[in-house]
């Protein structure tokens, strides 16, 4: 045997390895795996002692209900509804208080600037433009977020989200996607850009793309306030007060479910057409239920989420407020620039059951969905028209009486806010994650096209019935 003496060359090792490999046959890999598993079992049996204990059973008993085929999904819906209901009921009053305080301040500042003799356009630009944008964002968004995020974080900390993924797994697999998409979708409820980044946990490139492209179908933090406000102002107000908050929460849940439905539908369609393939298997571990730590919940939900979203909204709202003020105050001919653009967009808006102002709003709000409602209201109200502090009641009568809103407008606005192009950050993130202009364009335009289609359909159906 040549290799037993003298110097060993790499080729000798390889040759000998090949000989041994053929002698062992192709069971070698299996034998290694088997030996690992049986040794793991042997060691674990000697090292780990089990004492009978109730806690272990409790975890499993909870899981049996929470992830059962019968109760799993209904329980999930119930939890979601309760979270929204608490958010809507709880946010109502603080929102109005905040708005009153902030707009009182605007009026005071306006009076002060007038008294100092500051030119009207500076006062208008600064206080009725930039400041008002910020004030709207803070008063409309802060209270719901400060309630919604801690509740959501509690569910997350408890370990409930992996159970959601477990419950939804079979649906995603039916749609030809990865079960882990349930988790990236859940992340999308927080922020679609974060959801897109979270798609990295999906190994198969095909399934990852599906998850990235469909992430924007679930409403993010920036869109929840819009949904909650519309549900409160229009749907709830159309019903007797007893049912109002329940109906509002139900509406938001329905919109969320519709978004989840679109996620499945589009995933299914994609995996049958441009991203053809079968779903691959994965292991999902259900971590033990952990007692949420209060400090961490407050930190993640209030600092990481609420303040983060709010700051981002304010950073976007201030320049947007300025842009809106300019659009509303620069006149060409008899009407302002904003009116011209809105007028130009109104045929399309009307066909979709919306109006030109709403479409203009969504164009201005491309950088951040957070500012849809404030932008829209600012355009509607122009400058200086709003002398009294806003409340949900005044809002409602203003939109209905002065701008011809109907229940259809509110419903379609909710639909369009669910189905339209993702915000600029998310589009940028899709590009960063896919490095492909084609998929980025698809991720941006596909939801928009669906939004046009769906709102056009509902508007047409309602008009035909009427």
């Amino acid at each position, binding site marked *: 045997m040549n290799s037993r003496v003298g110097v060993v060359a790499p080729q000798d090792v*390889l040759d000998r390895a090949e000989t041994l490999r053929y002698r*062992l046959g192709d069971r070698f890999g299996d*034998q290694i795996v088997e030996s*690992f598993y049986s*040794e793991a079992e042997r060691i674990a049996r*000697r*090292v780990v002692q089990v004492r009978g204990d109730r806690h272990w059973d409790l975890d499993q008993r909870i899981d049996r209900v929470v992830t059962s085929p019968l109760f799993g999904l209904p329980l999930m819906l119930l939890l979601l509804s309760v979270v929204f209901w608490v958010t809507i009921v709880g946010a109502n009053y603080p929102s109005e208080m905040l708005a009153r305080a902030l707009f009182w301040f605007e009026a005071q500042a306006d009076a002060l600037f007038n008294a100092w003799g500051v030119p009207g356009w500076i006062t208008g630009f600064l206080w009725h433009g930039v400041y008002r944008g910020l004030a709207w964002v803070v008063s409309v968004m802060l209270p719901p977020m400060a309630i919604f995020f801690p509740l959501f974080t509690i569910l997350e900390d408890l370990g409930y989200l992996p159970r959601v993924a477990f419950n939804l797994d079979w649906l995603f697999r039916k749609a030809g996607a990865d079960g882990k998409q349930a988790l990236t979708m859940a992340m999308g409820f927080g922020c679609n850009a974060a959801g897109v980044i979270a798609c*990295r946990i999906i190994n198969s490139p095909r399934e990852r793309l599906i998850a990235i492209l469909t992430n924007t179908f679930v409403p993010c933090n920036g869109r929840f306030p819009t949904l909650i406000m519309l549900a409160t102002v229009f749907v709830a107000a159309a019903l007797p007060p007893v049912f109002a908050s329940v109906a509002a929460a139900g509406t938001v849940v329905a919109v969320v479910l519709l978004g989840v439905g679109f996620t499945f539908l589009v995933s299914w369609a994609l995996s049958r057409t441009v991203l053809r393939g079968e779903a691959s298997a994965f292991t999902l571990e259900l971590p033990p239920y952990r007692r949420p730590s209060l400090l961490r919940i407050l930190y993640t939900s209030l600092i990481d989420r609420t303040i983060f979203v709010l700051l981002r909204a304010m950073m976007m709202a201030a320049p947007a407020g300025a842009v809106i003020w300019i659009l509303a105050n620069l006149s060409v001919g008899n009407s302002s620039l904003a009116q011209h653009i809105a007028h130009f967009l109104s045929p399309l808006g009307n066909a979709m059951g919306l109006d030109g102002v709403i479409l203009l709003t969504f164009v201005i709000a491309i950088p951040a969905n957070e500012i849809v409602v404030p932008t829209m209201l600012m355009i509607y109200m122009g400058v200086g028209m709003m002398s009294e502090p806003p409340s949900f009641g005044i809002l409602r009568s203003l939109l209905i009486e002065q701008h011809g809103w109907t229940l259809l407008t509110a419903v379609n606005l909710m639909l369009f806010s669910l189905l339209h192009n993702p915000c600029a950050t998310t589009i940028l993130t899709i590009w960063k994650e896919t490095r492909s202009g084609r998929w980025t364009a698809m991720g941006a335009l596909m939801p928009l096209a669906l939004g046009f289609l769906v709102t056009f359909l509902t508007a047409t159906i309602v008009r035909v019935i009427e």
Partner: protein
Amino acid sequence: MTSCKSCPVHNQLTHMGINLEKYDRLVTLAGNPNTGKSSLFNALTGLKQHTGNWPGKTVTRAEGGFILKGVRYKLVDLPGTYSLLSTSQEEEIARDFILFARPDCTIVVVDATALERNLNLVFQVLEITDKAVVCVNLMDEARRKGLEVDVRSLSRHLGVPAVPTVARTREGVYDLISAVAGVVQEEIQTAPRHPPLPPQVADAVEELVSLVERLAPGLPNARWVAYRLLEGDHRVRQALLSGELTRQVTPRRAPSRQPSPKIALEGAQ
């Protein structure tokens, strides 16, 4: 004085995206997902950490450091994986890091409540490197579930130190880094026990291991190379032919400053 940049070790390390300039020792953290690896990483590094991506990959990477008795340890967090078979990006990154960056110690974090399932990864890590410490984390949850884990016995069975911890409350973290320091300074001699194989297979593996060791004396992962060759892994064949695997067998850092008084493995008596 020769430049640090010209040495092959340095090249290999910068390739992995590691900057060792401000650190004396390299330690890495491996483990299954959901074992509290991130909590442990935070407990060990505190606020001294960087996050980014693995070079050319879309997998997040975190690194930080800690200092114990004047020695600066760099800690690199590997992606959480169930195995090192390189069937996914994460597994490939974790495997290549232990294989090529050759950390001075690899901490394998295991879930005390699911030891059996977690041991698979431990065995795979021990195939590649002798320098490992097993961190038996989530001890509080094990206690809550009525599980008693005999960590000393586990350590005896594995042939490397095993330390019980609760990373979230930092319980046992100091013992862990002491064990890591012991392995790094070679005060603790590790002797991993490999799962027994059927006689015929074991003979073939032993023969190949000794052959690989003669080709590259001192190669720490000869056993892993032998396994892969017997499986017919093309990448490993190539790496062996090109010398990529065997290039850095010479000890790459100065021997430990304090000659070791303790030879025996902790908990082995």
